[in-house]
């Protein structure tokens, strides 16, 4: 049953339409990458976020993802600020990473979120930036504003969660890591902690409309520092090379998740870590090769209830 507002209320609430014969002027933007999130880091907003994360996000994550956390000990020696670089297969990834961070990091963490997706409407921008501390990140092109904001927050000792693939995986395999996390780490001289999330895709893959509760594993890897490895030429490691190293670390965690720590380390030492991005083959073969933990199949119940007529 639809509810119709009284006409006068509708006329007040609804924005007037714009005459098609007039060009729309560029309005001062407070959306997308220009959205000002400063208010979400004020004490009252942090208090609200803390309440939300503790009483909504974490219970929700526990309910639908039942996360198991591995490698949290890698975070112990870190003082912060830290960049958490994770693989990305689902919208749930952000909530899961935030929920699984130790409290001392969780209370002072912002999340780089797609400016074109999470900040395209005022209500969305306000909701996500308040609930999870998201900041807008341009992902379709290089944007100095995004980088400057993230760097200034790191300098103010905020931790940053970032998904270097620049978007959720389409098919369950990883994608090339972009240089944003590496660049910020080098610019602010902070550690990058690789994070691998296993089993999130079956719970809520891209394009899904329903949650299917499951079990998720969250692995934190060894912190990576910019400049700790020299390039083969002997020069200082650049951001592109550092990004590749972060990707390799996440791939190692992925291998560890599918096998075991020792086997994964040995394969890594031999340079035989399975390709994080999957086989370079046709889509069906990539789907065929996908580990079971990344697949989402229709439930037997759903299949039996399907009526072909």
């Amino acid at each position, binding site marked *: 049953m639809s509810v119709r507002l009284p006409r006068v209320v509708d006329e*007040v*609430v609804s924005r007037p339409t714009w005459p*098609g014969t007039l060009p729309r002027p560029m309005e001062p933007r407070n959306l997308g990458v220009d959205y000002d999130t400063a208010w979400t880091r004020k004490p009252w907003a942090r208090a609200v976020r803390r309440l939300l994360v503790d009483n909504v996000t974490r219970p929700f994550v526990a309910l639908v993802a039942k996360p198991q956390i591995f490698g949290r000990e890698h975070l112990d020696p870190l003082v912060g600020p830290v960049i958490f670089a994770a693989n990305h297969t689902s919208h749930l990834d952000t909530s899961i990473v935030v929920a699984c961070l130790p409290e001392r990091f969780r209370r002072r963490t912002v999340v780089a979120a797609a400016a074109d997706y999470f900040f395209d409407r005022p209500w969305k921008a306000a909701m996500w930036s308040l609930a999870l501390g998201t900041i807008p990140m341009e992902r379709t092109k290089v944007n100095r504003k995004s980088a400057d904001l993230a760097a200034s927050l790191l300098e103010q000792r905020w931790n940053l969660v970032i998904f270097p693939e620049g978007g959720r995986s389409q098919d369950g395999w990883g994608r090339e890591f972009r240089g944003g996390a590496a660049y910020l780490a080098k610019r602010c001289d902070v550690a990058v902690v690789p994070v691998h999330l296993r089993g999130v895709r079956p719970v809520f893959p891209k394009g899904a409309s329903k949650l299917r509760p499951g079990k998720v594993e969250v692995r934190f890897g060894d912190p990576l520092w910019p400049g700790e490895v020299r390039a083969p030429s002997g020069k200082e490691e650049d951001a592109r090379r550092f990004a590749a190293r972060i990707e390799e670390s996440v791939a190692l965690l992925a291998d560890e998740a599918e096998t075991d720590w020792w086997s994964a380390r040995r394969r890594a030492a031999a340079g035989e870590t399975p390709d994080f991005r999957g086989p370079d083959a046709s889509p069906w073969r990539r789907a065929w090769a996908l580990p079971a933990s990344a697949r989402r199949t229709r439930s037997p119940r759903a299949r039996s209830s399907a009526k072909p007529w």
Partner: protein
Amino acid sequence: MSPRPGFVLEVDRSTPPTLFWHGEGFRFERLPEGSRVVYPPEPLPGLTDADAAVRHALEHPVGDSAPLSALLKPGMRLTIAFDDVSLPLPPMRRPDMRQRVIEAVLDAAAAAGVDDVVLIAALALHRRMTDDELRHALGDRVFDAFAPHGLLVQHDAEDPAALVHLGLTEEGEDVEINRRAAESDLLVYVNINLSAMDGGHKSVATGLASYRSLKHHHNVRTLQHSRSLMDRHHSELHTSNWRMGRLLRNAGVKIFQIETTLNLDMFPSQFAFLQKREWEWSLADRAGFHSTRLALERTPPRLARQIFQSMRSPYAPTSVQAGEVEAVHDVTLENLFRQQLVPVEGQTDILTMGLPYLCPYNVNSVMNPILVACLGLGYFFNLYRGRPLVREGGVCIISHPTPWAFNPVHHPSYIDFFEQVLAETTDLVEIEKRYEQQFATDPWYIHLYRTSYAYHGVHPLYMWYWCAHALDYLGGVIIVGGDRAAVRRMGFKPASTLADALEMAEDVVGRSPSITHLHAPPLLVADVS
């Protein structure tokens, strides 16, 4: 951001409904696709220091005039005349521009040791101003210094002893104006130029004149040939006034003209939606508009009128110029058109307009049917330069409740004119011929004009004449939402809705007519090419 100029909107499917003024209320009308709406410009920024601008203007006059301080001498007779309650509309917030200017003039007069100073409200044949209205226009300081001593007077066009005949123009027009003004060593005239019609030689030649003088340009023939009243060079009314003004100059009347222009910031913040374009209305504007509209629909007309009449405009002055009359007026027109001019391409078959609750002649009063006609066909129709917005033989659709109601104190002769004369004929020439003398010389009307707060007996005829150009030019006039009997009495056609009116208009202008809506007030002047 600099204020945006006025423009013409072409209505399409996604254009929101258009706001129409409707007396003490509003209508929200969806115009047919392809219609045009002429929007006024946004208000220009006001002068940063209005008082300094006034002082500068007095000491740096334009045209062939010495600075005011050089014209002031001890022992001289100084008269300061000022525009009456008909300007500006709505009345502006304190301080009124007249107060600012007159205080500056009096400061200069005091510094020069001028003792003999009289202030005159330039009423012409308008009603006298109340003490409250004078106090509002002039400020407490001026009012309290002059009114108790009888030095603040109101022009009396029916007092033979207070008038002086200065001669005839080359066209045989009598020039008879206020004696005190004419015989002063210096006459300072303080204008508020809200529209291009105001100011120039019209200030003294009309504002301080008698019926004997006014009848030469306030008549059917002159007003039929004033095309338009906003275009001085094509207005017979102004040409006549200019002839009289030059005769005044030749007769030795020394005039120091001060003209001021205001921006279009006409409505206070609670009515901000009236100054905005409908598709740019914010949530607050929409809430303000709909709550106002709903409240007004449930408010008794008398109370609604009081609410609107108490409105004071936050106008800001945009220019002040002083000196020789014609040179001053040229600068004034430049400043006015800088604010009000909107270029419009081509004419239209049907011109629509929503009339507000106020015209120059019903401040603190009801707008009676004759004033509705005058405002629509005399003023709004004439808001053009070049060619009228509507083509010859086109139709004018007016939105106004047009109540059959009169203020018996302010408009006694209007009642008789409406009840008796218009019941017999609406023909301008016939009315002028058969009834003008009777109304102009009626001793009871004259008595009320001189002693009460009544407009002169001939004033309703003048308001009817004011429609002369439009009535001569248009193929029909339709009033939407008006009192049907009152509308028919004036020879116009009533319609319940705009859609009905547009249907009726098609009988005159043909099918698929072009439609243009004049989105005023705020005021604008369409520069029609």
